[in-house]
Each structure stands twice: as C-alpha cells, then as structure tokens.
C-alpha cells in the first residue's frame, strides 16, 4: 500500500498528541471512575460490574447528613461569594487604580491565603475562634457565621486575582472617551468601568462559590454538629464505610459544579477571563 510522505504524521506530532491524550486521561480518569462506579450495583468495586443500579443514589438520599451537608455547603458558598466578591473587587480597584504606598504589599497580602495550606489556615482560624469565643462570650466555631467568615478568605484572593487581571486588560481610553462625552467620574464608573469589569467579577463569583463549595481542609476543624459541610460529611462517612454511596454523592457534586460552569460560560467566556 502506498502512503504519500505528506500523509505521514511526523514523530514529533505523534508524540505531542500522545502527551496531550495522556494528560487529559490523567485529569479525567478519576472523575470518570467516580461517575461510573456510582452506578455499579455491587458494594465491592469490581470489573465488569454484575449489574447497574441507582441504589447508591437512593442510599445517599436516605442519609440525612448528606442532604443537610449539601444545603449547608450551598448556603455557605453563596454567602461567602456574596461577601468576598465585593470586598475583593474593591481591593482590586484599590490595587490597580489607587495611588498610595504599599499597594504591592496589599496585593501580596490579599493573595497570601492561596499559598497557605488549608489545614494550617484552618488550625489558625480554629485557635482564633476559640479565643474570640472567650472574648465575645458566644459561639463562633461550628456556626454559619464562623464558616462563612472562613470561606470568605477563599473568595477574596480569587476575586482579587481575577478582577485585577480584568482591570489591567481594560482599555482606559474608553473611560476617557466617556469623560470626553460629558460623563462625570461616578457616571464613568457606573456606566463604563463596572460593565467592562463584569466578566472578571462573574468569573470571580463562580470560582469563589466553587472554592467554598468543595472546600474540605479549611473547614474540617470549624464544623460542628448541625453545621457540617458536604465535603466534611463525605469524609466522616468514609471513616466508617466504603461503598459507592460516596461516588453517588460526588457525582451530584460534580454535576452541580459542571452546570454552574456551563451557565456562567453562557454569560462570560471563561476561557477569555481565566
């Protein structure tokens, strides 16, 4: 059989494509495994599965800790994003637009939580909360407020990072054009700057939500009876049993995050912002 030389992919191209395929496989294989096993009928995971079923989803639904964990996580993630995004946006504006000494330091300070391991930050917050409880004479650990405050610390650095990037890419001539047309500084901000920052802010809100929603390490020490987030509830379950129930819960979690990303992408092209 004849093959023209040009039809033969070069060794380099084959290698690059193989590497890309392997990279995707490594990223998606665990996720795919979880989704697939959630439908296996059997408790001990084995291939091929004897049968498929939805029993683990029913099982998860029957366990109150998961449903309560889900609502707790949703509530905290929404509140943390709602508080953290405005704070982070204001900080990003100050960092990019402000003219004061220490802007660089402020930026590093606000991004620092990204560099601190969650368990370390969680332990620190735990100790801080214990002292604060003493001082204020009220509960802070294991309360919604305590968890929201902790998760706000996740939202702020993400927001600062994304909004700073979108502000730096913003064409300031458009603001000048608006001023030139008679818009005072406040109007320029409201009608031109803010709408142009929108993609960054929307992306920041989404990432803040996801960061909070799937956070385990920071939350572990801060949860308490009645205030257990979904990831912590899953870890607790894992300590006693291992069966595809967890895979079912994880699949629900993955689906929710996936839907959120798809919906966000409809409004803001994420690939352009992040």
């Amino acid at each position: 059989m004849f093959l023209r030389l040009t039809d033969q992919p070069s060794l380099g191209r084959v290698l690059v494509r193989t590497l890309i395929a392997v990279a995707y496989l490594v990223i998606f294989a665990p996720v795919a495994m979880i989704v697939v096993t959630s439908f296996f009928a059997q408790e001990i995971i084995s291939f091929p599965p004897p049968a498929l079923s939805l029993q683990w989803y029913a099982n998860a639904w029957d366990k109150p800790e998961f449903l309560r964990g889900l609502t707790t996580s949703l509530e905290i993630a929404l509140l943390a994003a709602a508080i953290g995004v405005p704070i982070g946006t204001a900080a990003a504006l100050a960092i990019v637009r402000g003219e004061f000494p220490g802007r660089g330091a402020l930026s590093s300070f606000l991004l620092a939580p990204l560099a601190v391991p969650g368990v370390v930050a969680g332990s620190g917050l735990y100790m801080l909360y214990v002292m604060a409880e003493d001082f204020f004479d009220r509960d802070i650990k294991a309360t919604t407020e305590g968890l929201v405050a902790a998760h706000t610390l996740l939202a702020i650095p993400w927001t600062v990072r994304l909004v700073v990037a979108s502000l730096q890419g913003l064409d300031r001539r458009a603001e000048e054009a608006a001023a030139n047309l008679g818009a005072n500084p406040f109007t320029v901000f409201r009608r031109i700057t803010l709408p142009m920052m929108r993609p960054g802010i929307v992306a920041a809100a989404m990432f803040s939500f996801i960061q909070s929603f799937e956070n385990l390490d920071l939350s572990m020490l801060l949860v308490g009876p009645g205030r257990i987030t979904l990831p912590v509830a899953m870890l607790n379950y894992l300590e006693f049993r291992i069966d595809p129930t967890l895979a079912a819960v994880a699949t629900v979690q993955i689906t929710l995050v996936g839907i959120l990303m798809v919906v966000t992408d409809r409004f803001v092209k994420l690939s352009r912002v992040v």
Partner: protein
Amino acid sequence: MSSLAIEKLSKRFGASVAVDELDLSVREGELVALLGPSGCGKTTTLRMVAGFLPPSSGRVLFDKEDVTRLPAYKRATGMVFQSYALFPHMSAADNVGFGLEMRGLGATERRKQVEEALRLVRLSHLAERLPRQLSGGQQQRVALARALVVNPRIFLLDEPLSNLDAKLRAEVRLEIRSLQQRLGLTTLMVTHDREEALTMADRLVVMESGRVRQIGTPRELYDAPKDAFVADFVGRCNILAGRRESEIQFRTDSGLLLPVDSAVEECKDATAFALRPERITLQAGGADGIQGRLKAVTYMGAQTEYVVAVGAEALVVVQSTPQVDEPLAALKPDDMVSLHWDRKAPRLVPQALPRV
C-alpha cells in the same frame, strides 16, 4: 464651534519636559495638525487640551474662556481616539447616543440625532451591532459619529488613521476632511504621518522635544522649511551638510560645489543644503549639469526613484516614470547621468534652528 488658544503650555514628568512653553492658536473652523516623531509632546498637548492631563504651567483657552482648570467632562470637546475607545458593551447606536444622554436629551430626540449622525458616517444599517462585530473602518466611523453628534466646541483627533490599512486610510482621510470642512469644525489633530498631515491640515505644527519647530501651511513647510529637521520631517529631502561658498554656490563638507541662487534668503548660519528629490531633473549621459553615477533604480509605479552618486555624496531623485521608449527608461546602475535643478529650488538652512 470655538477657537482654541494655547498659551505657554508646559508639561513636566519629574525631570523630563514633555511639552515646553507651547504657544498655538487654532481659528474657528480650522484644522491644525501637530506633526512630529514619537515622544515630541504632540499627544501630551492634545491630552491637555482634552483635559485628561493637568498642565504643569500655561493656559488653554476656548474662545476667550480659560478652561485650564476645567475637568475633561465639562470641556465639551469631541475626541476620536487612536484605538477608537468604543464602549465594548454598547451597540453602535448607544455609543453614539452616550454623549447626548449625558447632556440630558430625551430618548426620542436622542434617537433622532443618533440616526442622523450614523447616516452622516454611512452606518445606519449597523446601528445595533456591538463594536466587536464591526470592522476597523466601521469602528472608526462610529467613533467619529460619537464625537461629532454632541456638537463639540473643539474637535480632537488622536492619530485617527493609524489603525487602518493603506487603502482605507486614504478614504477615511478624505471623509474626515470633508466632514470637518462641511461642519466647520475647529480641529486639533495629532499625527506622525506626514502624508496625513499634509493632505488634511490647513496649518501644520512640526514639533520636536516638546517644542514647536515651525508653524505654517503644508505648502510653506514643504517648500520653505526653516531648518533641516522640518525639511526632512514633512517630506523626503536631500540634505547635505556644508556652507555657502558664494552668491551662487554651496560647498558641501565633502567638497562638492552645488548651484544655488543668491535670492535664496541669506541665512548666515546655514549649514545645510536641502533639495526635494522631485525638484531634480535627471538626464542620461550629458555633459552639462552635475555629473553622477547611477547607483540604484527603483520602480514605484507612477514614479521612479534614482539614487545617484555625486562625488562622495548620494542624491535621491524622483521622476515621473518614463515611457518605455524614452532614453531614461533604459538607465541601469553604473550608467553616467547628469542632474539639473532650478537654482531657486534648493533651500539653505541651519541643521537645527537654535532655541529662541
């Protein structure tokens, strides 16, 4: 429309001086172009007139009114930006209507004026498009309409054509110029493109290092530049260093004697001979005139460019491309040629005008 006056305007950034005591006036309905290399202070000047940049000293006046301390949004200038600076989240019509809205016009009146402005730039059919759905030329016209619809006191153009391709540039140039004349817009334009400046401006201001080198009509600057910098900046020019030898001769530093006219304004400190390439006539062979050897021939369509070595100097000559049967058409490098020019054509100028 107002007239514009700039008085002793300066802008310093730390130790460096971007604009140095600039004086300039633009009459009502006149288009004045600031021309100069990048960093000459032309854009800084425009931004001070628009109010985006506070001057270090000096005044900006619209008619007789001092606007130096007025913020940009109260100046009522209309500016077209180099990058167009359209509002990316608003349709073409909303972009154009923005200034009217800021002036408190009602929606009905606004719509009417927006339609009219878009018709003026022939974009009525694209009114609902977002900027990113428009081509560069169309965005440019939206920016024009947006600046014009508010009846600005002063019209400001910042390198308005530099983002367009060559063919479109010639078209938009004419379009802007005819709009400007028809509407009688007092216009200050910034450009580094001499062709743009020569073809559009009533008067040109050649700037360098924050200072004015020369102000005049395009013709004055082209034909009678005051120094070698201006001569070179407003068009191609053969500039040879040397000094006047006699009433009718100029001696270059390399020892060449060139014919000039005694009527050429006596300029005591003239150190350069400036002659436009198209003012030289080229002949094949020939015994009279300046003898030279052809170094290169470049065919450019309507015109042909010749580089001729004369002694140690090289002169550029531009002629209308000869017909194929003319002797000039057969010229090739290393052929002997002779050069002629009207004695009144060369200018004797200083290399650079001393600071006044």
